[in-house]
């Protein structure tokens, strides 16, 4: 471990080395998990690409891809940015830096061993909660410790208000803990096998309460925390409306939770649960777009920076995709749209417009912003970052368009009946007709992955072999300083 400052002189400087390490891990998982994604997309074109090896089989690699992206790439990036921004918005060094280091490394170990366990066939099959019970317990423990570091830092802050980005990171930590623990309750049988506490339709409702809100509070809420710190910081403009961000935060936290059962339309769960989920999904559009508008308006007087700054370009573009995905989501929750989109590649396209367009792009922008500042040198190559930007945009667009094409045709062809009520097409003919779309998707994935590899090279050239710059908290404006009487 690289934190070897003596406690005296390090007490009042920011703990940034752990941030650097987490960025590196995050990029590593991005490359690995995206490669797995590209590989399984090739398997849909050439099904013998698993070469008869069980661990290369689609059914095992696909959870590796999703978990690697969400928990390897995503959570490492969230931890890095949370640690970076919570110190700077609280004007104190991280609470318990050693614990922060423990969280960072324990998390990587969970991802590594968890990934291997998925290849070995240890899985609960519950989407985005596939890891079996030993990992579930380890995740819960590390997650709580992450919360201790984060909230501990906030509790010791030198500035009275808790900045909005910290609310989103806070909601990420609290709500994901709640969802993770409840959804994974199970009776263990062996190390690699357990049975869910819930069965059938009830299990489905609990799972999608989790599954939808893991997207909600991790991939949306957590990354909004990123947005609220790094967008104003990088554009040099204050948040357009702080009040709007406050209102949108509570509306988001309240309404997201209800929308999960829209993943279970036309299923055997109670109809009132499905209907309620539709209503809340539509309501969710309001806080989602309020946040997007708040972000776009924040940069509205700094557009000229977009011409020269790839990091800001990534962040602003990610907001556009955030707007697209949060509009598409409520639309897909309508039963009349869902009847076509459900079970098809449209869902895959929707997920990737969020995951590539929003999550990955805002993370890329944030990494390009943080890396040079963390080590005190300019980015190795702005030109490569610009190329990366266009590759990421092209890859994402092509991916979404390919999956829209595939999904809408699947959905309509499956449902198509002729004038005497006979099915118009056999399943296997529809499946076979997907090949061009799957080929386009493979190309899209390769383009996006190529961009990510460029970033990995660029960032490693920037970061490797350099020490974190020593940063001390700046003095706090007396108007916002914590007085003796203020409760913390």
């Amino acid at each position, binding site marked *: 471990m690289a934190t070897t400052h003596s406690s005296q002189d390090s007490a009042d400087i920011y703990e940034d080395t752990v941030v650097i390490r987490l960025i590196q891990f995050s990029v590593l998982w991005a490359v690995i998990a995206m490669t797995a994604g590209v590989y399984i997309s090739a398997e849909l074109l050439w099904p013998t690409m698993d070469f008869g090896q069980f661990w290369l089989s689609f059914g095992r690699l696909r959870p590796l891809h999703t978990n690697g992206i969400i928990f390897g790439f995503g959570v490492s990036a969230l931890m890095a940015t949370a640690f970076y921004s919570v110190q700077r918005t609280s004007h104190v060094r991280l609470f318990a830096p050693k614990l922060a280091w423990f969280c960072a490394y324990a998390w990587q170990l969970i991802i590594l061993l968890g990934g291997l366990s998925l290849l070995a066939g240890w899985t609960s099959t519950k989407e985005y909660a596939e890891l079996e019970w030993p990992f579930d317990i380890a995740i819960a423990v590390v997650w709580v410790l992450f919360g201790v570091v984060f909230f501990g830092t906030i509790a010791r802050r030198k500035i009275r208000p808790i900045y909005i980005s910290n609310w989103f990171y806070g909601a990420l930590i609290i709500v994901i803990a709640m969802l993770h623990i409840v959804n994974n309750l199970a009776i263990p049988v062996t190390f690699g096998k357990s049975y869910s506490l819930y069965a059938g339709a009830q299990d489905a409702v609990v799972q999608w309460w989790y599954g939808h809100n893991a997207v909600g509070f991790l991939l949306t809420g957590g990354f909004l925390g990123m947005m609220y710190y790094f967008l104003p910081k990088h554009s040099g403009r204050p948040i357009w409306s702080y009040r709007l961000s406050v209102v949108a935060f509570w509306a988001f936290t309240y309404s997201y939770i209800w929308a999960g059962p829209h993943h279970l339309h036309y299923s055997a769960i109670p109809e009132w649960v499905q209907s309620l989920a539709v209503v809340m999904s539509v309501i969710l559009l309001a806080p989602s777009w309020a946040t997007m508008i708040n972000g776009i308006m924040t940069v509205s007087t700094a557009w000229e920076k977009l011409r020269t700054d790839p990091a800001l370009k990534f962040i602003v573009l990610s907001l556009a995709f955030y707007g697209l995905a949060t509009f598409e989501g409520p639309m897909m929750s309508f039963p009349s749209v869902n009847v076509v989109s459900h*079970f*098809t590649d449209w869902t895959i396209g929707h997920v990737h417009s969020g995951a590539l367009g929003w999550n990955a792009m805002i993370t890329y922008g944030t990494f390009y912003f943080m890396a040079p500042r963390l080590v005190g040198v300019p980015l190795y190559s702005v030109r490569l970052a610009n190329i990366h930007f266009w590759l990421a945009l092209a890859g994402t667009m092509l991916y979404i368009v390919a999956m829209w094409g595939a999904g809408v045709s699947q959905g309509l062809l499956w449902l198509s009946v002729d004038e005497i009520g006979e099915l118009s097409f056999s399943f296997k003919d529809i499946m076979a007709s997907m090949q061009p779309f799957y080929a386009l998707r493979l190309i899209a994935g390769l383009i996006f992955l190529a961009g990510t590899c460029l970033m990995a090279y660029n960032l490693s050239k920037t970061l490797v072999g350099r020490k974190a710059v020593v940063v001390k908290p700046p003095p706090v404006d007396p108007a916002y300083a914590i007085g003796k009487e203020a409760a913390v």
Partner: protein
Amino acid sequence: MSALSLHKRIEENTGLLIFGILLVSAIGGLVQILPVLNQKSLQAPSTNTQPYTAVELTGRDIYIREGCSVCHSQQVRPLIAEVERYGPYSRAGEFVYDRPFLWGSKRTGPDLHRVGGKFSDDWHRIHLIDPRAVIPESIMPGYPWLAKREAHRAGDIVAKMTALRTLGTPYTDEQIAQAEADLEGLLEIDTLIAYLQMLGTGLDEEIAR
């Protein structure tokens, strides 16, 4: 202005912020999820729905292990096209012994909830080992290793059935005592086929007709 001053307090107090987030995010789950968990009708089996036998349970857990539910749903929707393509739509009572549920979210391959009895055991055996031997257009991976491994190898069937009984699956002592012997001599592929052949056969008789 009291709402604003209340919010000012939350904004400046770590404990209140944590409590506020927990409270606001928990409401949805309490109102929407808890009633579903307490709804007895969702736990009542359809008349023909039985707990999985030792062989079927082993097959189901192989289905889980290989990630079949990544590409195959088990949820026939109440739509004309789906009922024609797959069979009667899925009822809650058919899933009461499913831990976890395997409805899936993607149909890269067809829905399997009513696949039981549609193909012969031999067809399944060939198809699982080499899907393109029976369906040339298929993009499903082959699972040749299933025909090489013995089903009782894991040796955990008694522990599994005991765990499920703890959760409420009505296994008898005889069924559990007999479990090891039931798996004797079977390959993994045999148990998976047994599971596939019973899928969707738990409907009430008048609906099935």
